[in-house]
């Protein structure tokens, strides 16, 4: 499937009915999700027939993208049962039957599985809502759960820290691309509807 086709399909994915600000809930933009998944598939052969974990799956944007490009199986984990409801609705609308969902937090996730997935994909919370360091908690957990690679998004401003930490955890990180991202408004006193930040799309090789 071509990138443009994937993106236009992902535009049909329903977002959160009532996004929970404290969980930093927002759907990954279809354009970004499509670029991510398409690159993972074509440049790294990490989608087709792979077992994939979508950590913090939210409404399922990345999971759906993975299925569209031929993932063997996908498991989506999220802490919010309402998000999982939306995700399940999306999976039904897209008639996808090989995605399983689990309601769990990143704390439980590290010990939840007896064996590893081939690949972990995620767009973790950036830690901007009184949850500083949460993106690194996601990364640490993801690295424990993948046997081949982890693909993730992190603020470019934290790049050095992310790369160093990943290496200390035994991974070989590679910044695949730098993207521009509009993060939705946060507190009531913020006047802009969204703010643009630079985001790194990073591949962490585990094996």
């Amino acid at each position, binding site marked *: 499937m071509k990138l443009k086709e994937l993106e236009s399909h992902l535009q049909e994915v329903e977002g959160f009915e009532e996004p929970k600000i404290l969980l930093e809930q927002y759907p990954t933009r279809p354009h970004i999700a499509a670029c991510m998944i398409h690159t993972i598939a074509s440049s790294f052969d990490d989608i087709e027939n792979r077992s994939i974990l979508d950590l913090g799956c939210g409404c399922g944007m990345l999971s759906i993208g993975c299925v569209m490009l031929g993932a*063997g*199986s996908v498991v989506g984990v999220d802490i919010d049962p309402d998000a999982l409801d939306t995700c399940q609705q999306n999976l039904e609308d897209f008639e996808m*039957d090989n995605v*399983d969902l*689990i*309601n*769990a937090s990143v704390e*439980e996730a590290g010990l939840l599985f*007896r064996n590893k997935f081939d690949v972990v994909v995620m767009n973790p919370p950036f830690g901007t809502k009184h949850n500083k360091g949460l993106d690194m908690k996601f990364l640490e957990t993801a690295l424990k759960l993948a046997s081949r690679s982890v693909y993730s998004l992190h603020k470019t401003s934290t790049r050095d820290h992310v790369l160093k930490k990943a290496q200390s955890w035994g991974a070989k990180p590679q910044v695949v691309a730098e993207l521009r991202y509009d993060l939705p408004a946060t507190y009531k006193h913020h006047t802009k509807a969204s703010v643009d930040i630079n985001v790194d799309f990073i591949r962490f090789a585990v094996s």
Partner: protein
Amino acid sequence: MKLLTHNMLTSKAIKQVNTGYPLLIEARDVKVSEVEFNPEFIAKIIPKVDWDCLRRAAEQLGHLDKIPASVPDTYENQQEFLKQAHHVLLEIELINGDLVCPESNRKFPVTDGIPNMLLREDEI
């Protein structure tokens, strides 16, 4: 929740639980659906499947007759076996019921196919 997923799940995050595997299934609603057969993928994951756990799970869902007793040596080339494995791993789903930790007896409810593995603060 498919049996492929159940085959991976543990309750090890609960403190004082050693292995937390396999989780027992108390099934209330089970669904059988049709999922596209991908023999290449099934052959890849067979080595990762705990076959005893899978058999017990199939039994707890009332589908023991569907699962071969063991994995044949040349399973990669046996279409019939791969098809049966595919059926048990991906087409039989627990919709409502509970998963039970074998050590602590802690129940994890499964609702609409989604297991709730969230733990309380005092359990971690």
